[in-house]
């Protein structure tokens, strides 16, 4: 019965969508439903996490059609932890949105669309089917397109248009890649594809389709040289939206890359390892350099998403148990921290009417509590121990040292310093510097009480600290998850009723 745990993180938000669409008129219903269903999803995701940790793999065949004929929902530890963390963000940002999302957006069905986004993200993490993954990506994309542009403001639309176009390009490449893979293997089940490629005497043909998927997922993940849409758009919508995008969306791309090269294209990994490695390095470097000259809090943070994605992909490129564990740990850490930073930026906007560092200042004295709440995620992102980011970076660099990947280690460390620079820039400008006098800082009329915005930030900050001090269980979990990733055969055995024996 624990298989139903797979279903809940998808079904709950979807039911929420339906009920909120039916309760369209009442804003109170919209608000209450948004929080209720995102919280329920979070609860369900925790259940899933525990169930998966017990059972190693949970598999459910949709429609009772056995794999590879029907669609499989599969959760290994990696999926489960991704679902759990993203649902956590979903719930936190849902509460935050109560006080940030204005009436106009609520009337345009903000919360149903928000739940669609969660639905899509969780679906993408849980599916075991390549084409179904495409569908989840599209669900996620359309929800994000709408959430990004629904305000109809100039910036949102400017950024949104690029976001939409490039992501559609990515979808097309995904579809093309998936089509070719189907053409060659006759199957869409990821475990089945993986098995066929392992059994094939020569799987070279799959390299070109794997390149299409690499570009597609890389684009969604915001990797170099595909990230352009991200800094152009992520800073434009309300912070609740930016935050959940920043935390979740690119991570789905990263997740898909991991799934691709640890399961679907496992045998091709050696061919692409160097590509992944250098793309990861360039992603780290270009992302962090992009941030260095920016002067708007959310723009800086957007570039750092790119840079941090590089670290995670680096873990994949190293492909050792420690590296993968580090990357998974990194994902969890980064989702929490980056979401939190965007949430903080929203509070800054609420207080000062802007998060342009040239216009904002003096927060350290006027809102010391906010300073503390910014300090924790910011310096965690900067890798300051003993916050979560330190351990993430440490584990990753350690894995790099172990395989003597000196260039990667060098850049990872240098980028760490520049990350710290960016965080101190925000700190120094927004919090330390005096409030510039000649700028208008009349904040917009607040939508709801500040406490709804602060409470999630507090919770996420506490999580960051707790992971920093007591993160060992999480890291051990990541190690177990990484071990699963490195053992595709057991994934295949869990999914397919009659897996072929593959000699490693």
């Amino acid at each position, binding site marked *: 019965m624990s298989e139903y745990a797979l279903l809940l993180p998808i079904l709950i938000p979807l039911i929420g969508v339906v009920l909120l669409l039916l309760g369209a008129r009442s804003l109170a219903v919209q608000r209450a439903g948004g929080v209720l269903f995102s919280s329920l999803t979070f609860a369900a995701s925790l259940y899933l996490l525990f169930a998966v940790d017990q059972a190693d793999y949970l598999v459910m065949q*949709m*429609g009772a*059609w056995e794999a590879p*004929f029907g*669609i499989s929902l599969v959760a290994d530890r990696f999926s489960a932890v991704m679902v759990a963390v993203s649902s956590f963000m979903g719930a936190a940002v849902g509460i935050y949105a109560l006080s940030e999302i204005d009436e106009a957006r609520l009337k*345009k*069905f903000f919360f149903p669309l928000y739940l*669609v986004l969660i639905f*899509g993200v969780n*679906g993408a993490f849980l*599916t075991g089917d390549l*084409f*179904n993954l495409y*569908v989840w990506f*599209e*669900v996620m994309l359309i929800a994000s397109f709408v959430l990004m542009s*629904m*305000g*109809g403001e100039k910036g949102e639309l400017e950024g949104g248009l*690029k976001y939409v*176009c*490039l992501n559609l390009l990515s979808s097309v490449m995904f579809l*093309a890649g998936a089509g*070719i893979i189907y053409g*060659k293997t*006759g199957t869409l089940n990821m475990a089945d594809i993986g098995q066929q490629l392992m059994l094939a005497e020569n799987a*070279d*043909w799959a*390299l*070109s389709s794997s*390149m*299409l998927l690499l*570009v597609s997922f890389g684009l969604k993940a915001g990797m170099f*040289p*595909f990230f*352009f*849409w991200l*800094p152009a758009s992520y800073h434009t919508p309300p912070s609740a939206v930016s935050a959940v995008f920043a935390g979740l969306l690119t991570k789905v791309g990263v997740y898909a890359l991991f799934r691709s090269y640890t399961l679907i294209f496992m045998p091709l990994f050696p*061919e692409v390892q160097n590509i992944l490695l250098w793309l990861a390095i360039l992603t780290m470097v*270009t992302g962090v*350099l992009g941030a*260095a*000259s920016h002067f708007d809090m959310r723009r800086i943070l957007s570039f750092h998403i790119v840079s941090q994605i590089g670290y995670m992909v680096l873990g994949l490129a190293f492909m050792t148990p420690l590296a993968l564990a580090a990357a998974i740990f990194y994902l969890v850490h980064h989702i929490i921290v980056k979401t939190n930073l965007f949430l903080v930026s929203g509070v800054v906007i609420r207080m000062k009417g802007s998060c342009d560092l040239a216009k904002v200042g003096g927060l350290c004295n006027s809102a*010391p509590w906010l300073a503390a709440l910014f300090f924790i995620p910011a310096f965690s992102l900067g890798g*300051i121990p003993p916050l979560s980011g*330190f351990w993430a970076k*440490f*584990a990753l660099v*350690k894995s790099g*040292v172990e395989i003597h990947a000196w260039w990667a*280690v060098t850049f990872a*460390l240098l980028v760490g*310093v*520049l990350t710290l*620079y960016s965080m*101190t820039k925000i700190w*120094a400008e927004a919090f330390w510097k*005096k409030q510039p006098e000649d700028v208008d800082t009349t904040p917009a009329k607040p939508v709801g009480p500040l406490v709804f915005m602060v409470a999630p930030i507090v919770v996420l900050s506490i999580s960051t600290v707790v992971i920093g001090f007591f993160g*060992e269980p999480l890291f*051990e979990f990541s190690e177990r998850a990484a071990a699963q990733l490195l053992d595709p055969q057991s994934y295949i055995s869990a999914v397919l009723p009659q897996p072929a024996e593959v000699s490693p």
Partner: protein
Amino acid sequence: MPVSLLISLLFIFGAALVAPSLCRLFKDKGGCLLSLAPFAAFGLLLSQSGAIAAGESIRYHIEWFSSLGCAFSLRLDGLALLMGLLVTGIGGLIVLYASGYMHGHPRLGRFYLYLLSFMGAMLGLVLSDNLIVLFVFWELTSITSYLLIGFNHEEKISRWKALMALLTTGLGAMAMLAGFLIIGQVSGSYELSEINGMGDLLQGSPFYTAMVLLVLGGAFTKSAQVPFHFWLPNAMAAPTPVSAYLHSATMVKAGVFLLARLNPSLGGMPLWENTLAIFGSVTLLLAVVLGLFQKDLKAILAYTTLGVLGLLTMLLGIGTEYAIKAMVGFLLGHALYKAALFMVAGSVDHETGTRDVTLLRGLRRLMPITAMAGGLAALSMSGLPPFFGFIGKELIYKAGVKLGGLELYFLVAAFVGNFLMMALALKAGIGPFFGKENNDALPKKPHEAPVTMWIGPVLLGVIGLVLGLLPFLVTDSIVAPAIGSILGGAIPEIKLALWHGFNLPLLLSVFTVAGGFGLFMLRGKFWAVADPVRAAIRPWGAEAMYERIFNGTIWLSKAQTRCLQTGRLHDYVFMIVAVTVGFLIWAIVNYGGLQFEMDWAQFDPIKVGLVLIMIVATIVAVTASAYMTVLVALGTVGFGVALIFVYYGAPDLAITQLLVETLTVVLFMFVILRLPPLKSMSSMATKIRDAILASTFGGLMTLLVLKAVNIQFDHAISEKLAAMSYPEAKGKNVVNVILVDFRALDTLGEIVVVAAAALGIAALVATGFKKKKGAAS
């Protein structure tokens, strides 16, 4: 008792956490209360000294991120005890001092939070027995000192200097972390007590050079060795209690401490010794020479700190037992007098409103106690007997005269460094109090500092004197164990005394005193040229280099943004597609080849004709400049695709395609007046470039399709689906059965997509379009 190590740490961090509330409750008295925590820690550590002196070490260990090879282990040995006592003892006095110095400051609580966190981090650093834990505390000292240096953060210069310290030490720390990781990988452990026994293993490793250089990167930046020395004088931006603490007992000593810690495992090789000695000596000489040209009381002291750090590093590099003895002695002496001198300088600044030594003189009458403290400290620093400073200097010369050959250079360096340092000491500790009173030129009317502000310096000055007279108080209990830790062996027998008879070291001391006093008398000459000299050196200095690198990075960032993040979708698409094309070509050429089968029989006229028409329509759709032409062309393509679907037996698809295509056109028609006229904006060259790229991409897709269907796979799944369709899923239209049963989840996702799209379109339209040109209003 091992847990006492943890408790001493908790005292201080606990005090840090309660500091803000305590200061709110008790105002300035809060500082006095808070000073109890470091003193308690001091007592706790001191209570362990017996065991340490007996050659034991105390180790506390709990699991912490053990899967990363880390553990929270603390260890108290001789070196840790010495440093720990300095950190907590001087720390306590500083806390006390700050309560007077920061009297009435609105952010006193926050100041104590930072200061005590810093103290805790420093104590943790010296107590760690695990490289990673050490690194954790190391970074904590960086970040807390960042907060402290930038404490007066309304001023831009403070923020800039705080950042400078953070980035410089942070960069070093990254190198150090890499070094630690390599050490850990080679030795298989991060536990210092284990690593210290593996000197041979590490030194025999091919990565030895890398690990030494990387670790030195951390130590040199932290301890401000040339060429990373520039941040330290700039750290003066911090409130004076912080400077006093940072410079005497803590932060800057961390680097030297690290070198001493790793000396047993990494030391002894020429690379280690030469690098340390040379960089140390250069730092020493540079610091003292630059110090001569300083007019700011704190800056003078800062340069002497730099000098001392150089000297200590140099001694460590020389590495003989004498040198280590000298180093430990000097380290202890320096901590005592430097803290005192900074506090005195702070008091003078506090009471007179200036730190300009050209203005300050004759204060001894108005500030007698402070003057006394300053005098004691300055004399100790000058290395005059009977102060402890003298013992330290004698040890240095003793170590120096044992050297021979080229190494005598180090003796010369030590000598020059010492007498210049004496001159600086007199400038800072004696100059302001003697000579003719100059009170009218001072911004404030000076009077004696409050008791909290003089108790610390006086105490430290007195201790310097007492230890000079009675060195045995610390010889066996503290100094010798520390030397033992650094040398990595048993605790040596040592004897500290003021008088060793007439010998070369004594002669050198005499010359030092004479030279130092002479220079002190000439101080006005240096000040006269100070500004032009500093201005002349600056462009070639390390600080200018730092600024250049900093600005260069920002420039690089801007250049990169200009190149990559151009804001033009065209560039983005071009880049993405070009890279995809590159990847595909690479994949196809290297893996799989270009061969595919071509069945010419497939080219029957009607298909050729149809495809030809579709290609023409496609080209028209892309190139036409009138909407109707484009839409009609798109419609034609849509009809064509539908025909293909029909031809290949997909009626469902064909119908859907037709309906969708037409509805798309209908939707287009709704907004057509809202859309701008289609015009060509790119230059011909751009168009050609784009066309080439697009065609290459298209060609590759063609090739992939040809190759994809080259090998016929077995249709096992489709066949099974077709076989199950009617008997098991009760449907004869297999495609529909797939959609609503076999793969219903896809369909569920898909209807969510269209539902969301509908909401999105409504949301966009509902944002309030203006009425268009047709509208008469």
